[in-house]
């Protein structure tokens, strides 16, 4: 058989040489080198995904990523100083703040002193030393491994964080994780965070992704989560990247027995973004709620692709995603619930809803069910349309101006996905909900 030499795009060629350079420079540990090699070989085999690859049908990364920016290095002192000022301007959500600058953990900018008992934060490079179980976790689930963005993230694995919550710990307040991109020349930022929630522990984490406007930096991050048996994790995510940015994010979660995982993403930033959620039940009687609100304007493109894997019986998952699209924005939702043959008594409900505020946007939905067990109750719904003209008329007839009426209805629409987030033990989640609703209102106000 003749070997086929694939034609590489400029971006692919840059990524190939970036990897070569990284490899020549050496890895922080041999384990990292192996992980990188695995990720790279997957990337090398298939290149950047394009629209002929079913999972990337609506987000043609090969076309959208014309060039690959140079890999970001560790921030220097002046970069850190600038980042400190920028981070200071972001209102706190809950408790201890952890900061990553250009993908590198910065203890200087983080509240290392006030970390609650039972919470251990280590930079990824340090965490893997002598700990093969951490290395094994970093390899990712089968679904993540097969994914192009995750493979690239692995190929360039350098730093990040490992957050360990000891069994039985009630963190009681949220970890406020900021991932900031510094100003200056556009680069490719790569970071990995691993969160291990021990048995019976409960914790809340909020990620905020920010970066400078007007520069087309690229960011490819992965968050891996292991929710132990009987544990609870509530995870909030704000993607408010700069307007020219490319943002790829993978969430790879394993949910143990009797556990509860709740995740909420608010997307308003980046020119092109894709949020991937791979969630898998590995123990029975667990519950997962995946939700998100995406608000896009201009020519923004945002893709939410999720895979909910019911691999064991007696679990319940709920997926609720809301999209609000203006101008010529493009929203994508791909959701797949898999119920494996053994996963009897599964309950899975998925809903994707879209409101278009102008004539120009486009929304592509692909809500899938793949069911191999019979004793299940699964469903999905999908709606798409403009704001209900009857409701608009009613509000206007009561004297509410057009713009305000729209804002009211949009807020109500988005609120549904946010409202009952964090029903667990984490009271401070209230702050996150408020912050997100404020963002939504600001976004609506900025339209006018």
């Amino acid at each position: 058989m003749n070997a086929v030499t694939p034609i590489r795009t400029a971006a692919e060629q840059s990524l190939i040489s970036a990897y070569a350079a990284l490899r020549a420079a050496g890895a922080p540990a041999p384990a990292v080198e192996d992980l990188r090699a695995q990720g790279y070989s997957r990337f090398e085999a298939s290149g950047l995904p394009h629209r002929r690859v079913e999972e990337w049908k609506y987000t043609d990364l090969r076309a959208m990523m014309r060039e690959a920016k140079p890999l970001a290095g560790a921030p220097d002192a002046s970069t850190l100083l600038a980042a400190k000022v920028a981070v200071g301007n972001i209102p706190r959500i809950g408790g201890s703040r952890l900061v990553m600058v250009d993908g590198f953990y910065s203890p200087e900018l983080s509240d290392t002193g006030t970390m609650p008992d039972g919470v251990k934060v280590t930079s990824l490079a340090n965490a893997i030393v002598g700990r093969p179980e951490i290395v094994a976790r970093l390899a990712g689930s089968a679904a993540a491994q097969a994914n192009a963005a995750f493979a690239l993230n692995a190929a360039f694995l350098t730093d990040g964080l490992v957050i360990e919550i000891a069994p039985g710990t009630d963190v009681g307040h949220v970890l406020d994780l900021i991932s900031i991109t510094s100003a200056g020349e556009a680069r490719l930022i790569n970071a990995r965070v691993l969160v291990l929630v021990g048995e019976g522990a409960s914790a809340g984490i909020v990620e905020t992704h920010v970066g400078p406007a007007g520069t087309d930096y690229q960011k490819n991050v992965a968050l891996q989560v292991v929710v132990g048996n009987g544990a609870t994790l509530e995870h909030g995510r704000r993607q408010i990247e700069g307007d020219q940015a490319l943002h790829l994010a993978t969430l790879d979660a394993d949910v143990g027995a009797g556990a509860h995982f709740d995740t909420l993403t608010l997307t308003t930033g980046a020119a092109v973004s894709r949020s991937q959620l791979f969630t898998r039940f590995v123990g029975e009687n667990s519950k997962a709620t995946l939700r998100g609100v995406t608000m896009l304007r201009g020519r923004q493109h945002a893709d939410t692709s999720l895979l909910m894997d019911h691999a064991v019986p007696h679990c319940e998952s709920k997926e609720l995603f809301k999209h609000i699209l203006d101008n010529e924005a493009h929203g994508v939702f791909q959701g797949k619930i898999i119920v494996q043959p053994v996963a009897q008594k599964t309950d899975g409900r998925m809903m994707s809803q879209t409101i278009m505020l102008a004539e120009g946007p486009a929304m592509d939905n692909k809500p899938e069910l793949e069911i191999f067990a019979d004793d299940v109750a699964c469903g999905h719904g999908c709606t798409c349309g403009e704001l209900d003209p009857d409701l608009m008329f009613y509000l206007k007839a009561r004297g509410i101006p057009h713009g305000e009426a729209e804002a009211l209805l949009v807020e109500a629409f988005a609120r549904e996905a946010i409202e009952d987030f964090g029903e667990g033990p984490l009271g401070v989640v209230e702050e996150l909900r408020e912050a997100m609703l404020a963002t939504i209102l600001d976004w609506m106000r900025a339209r006018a």
Partner: protein
Amino acid sequence: MPAVQETVEQVRSIDVDQYKYGFTTDVEMELAPKGLSEDIVRYISAKKGEPEWMLEWRLDAYRRWLTLREPEWARVHYPKIDFQDLYYYAAPKSNPAPKSLDEIDPAILETYKKLGIPLREQEVLAGVAPENRIAVDAVFDSVSVATTFKDELAKAGVIFCSISEALREHPELVKQYIGSVVPTTDNFYATLNSAVFSDGSFVYVPPGVRCPMELSTYFRINEKNTGQFERTLIIADKGSYVSYLEGCTAPMRDENQLHAAVVELVALEDAEIKYSTVQNWYPGDSEGRGGIYNFVTKRGDCRGARSKISWTQVETGSAITWKYPSCILRGDDSQGEFYSIAVSNGAQQVDSGTKMIHLGKNTRSRIISKGISAGKSQNTYRGLVSAHRRATNAKNFTNCDSLLIGNKCGAHTVPYIESKTASAVFEHEATTSKVSEDQMFYCMQRGLTQEEAIALIVNGFVKDVLQQLPMEFMVEAQKLIAISLEGSVG
């Protein structure tokens, strides 16, 4: 509700692997040489006495087909088909183009009688009110053997004949419309069909005419190692209406047989076409031996304003079903509908659904799909609803429900919902569940056996779709569904 009782009776009287229509007819056939080549395409065209342009059209399709690859995106698995190991043309030797029923081989007449399809008009007429009459085009392997009520239909201006005859008698109409909905370049199987199609039905309903009776085509595969490639073309001119039904069966054979049809519908301004299918090709045995590979391209073009195309399908047969009857809603205010029941049992694989392409303003579509999987079967709904920029105020409602019977089967839903218009309103809902134990217990407490209870509950599940079928086929379809589910519980 005699249907359920009758159904259950019937279910009881047959074995799992028995298929009522599985007999073979012993008729001397004329076969084209095995395999596919330009010569075979020429052979078929010559057999049909086609005009030169049609041969060129076929050859174009054939050359195109050589460059295509079999699609692999559907959730169906089967050994690679050897396209050179098939016969592409099989016609009864006695008289491939009978002028009247008396010229047809009596064995063939007997076959249709056994299938419950009377071809003698006087037999149909006995005791049937004129409005309940059904005109039938009977296709046996590669050729149409008879078309009933042609004269009566002609009085109303309706042309109903085999497509071979249409090519001879009405070449200008065929030339204008064939390939205008499903182009020869469309997909692997449609392209293959374009090259080698042997027969099928042709309908033209002139402006303002409401077709005076139901039209139907009955497809029968008889010969072994023969592919059936029929092509159906229905044109409803301005303001006309036609209701058409197709049925299909095949003998039980251990090897798989290929059926790759193309159906094109064209509805001009204010016209309406209602197309119903009761597909009961041989499904293979419970272990997956034999059965028809059913790769079908069906598409309707609502070309005129306010036109309407409605697809109703009851799919119980075939080892593999790959079909997506679709509507292109081109005309403003046009409407498309898709009502489907897909039952899979044994080792059957179904990948079926629809596409509703909203191009015109104020276009509306509705999709109701009911999938029932039993045995070791896999049943997938795959569908696309899209609204283009111009399709302001488009509306779609989709409901697709799946029911699982037993824990070895699978039910999958893969919808694509794409909107480029804010004023388009799309609503989609899908559920998957099993036959409720509570419902089963309730029925059985009232004295129904397990099989009766399943039949009753399933009939309730599919009722919305059954109601879309012409009355006389509703009961038939109801029975068919229950028979297909025979052996699914136990």
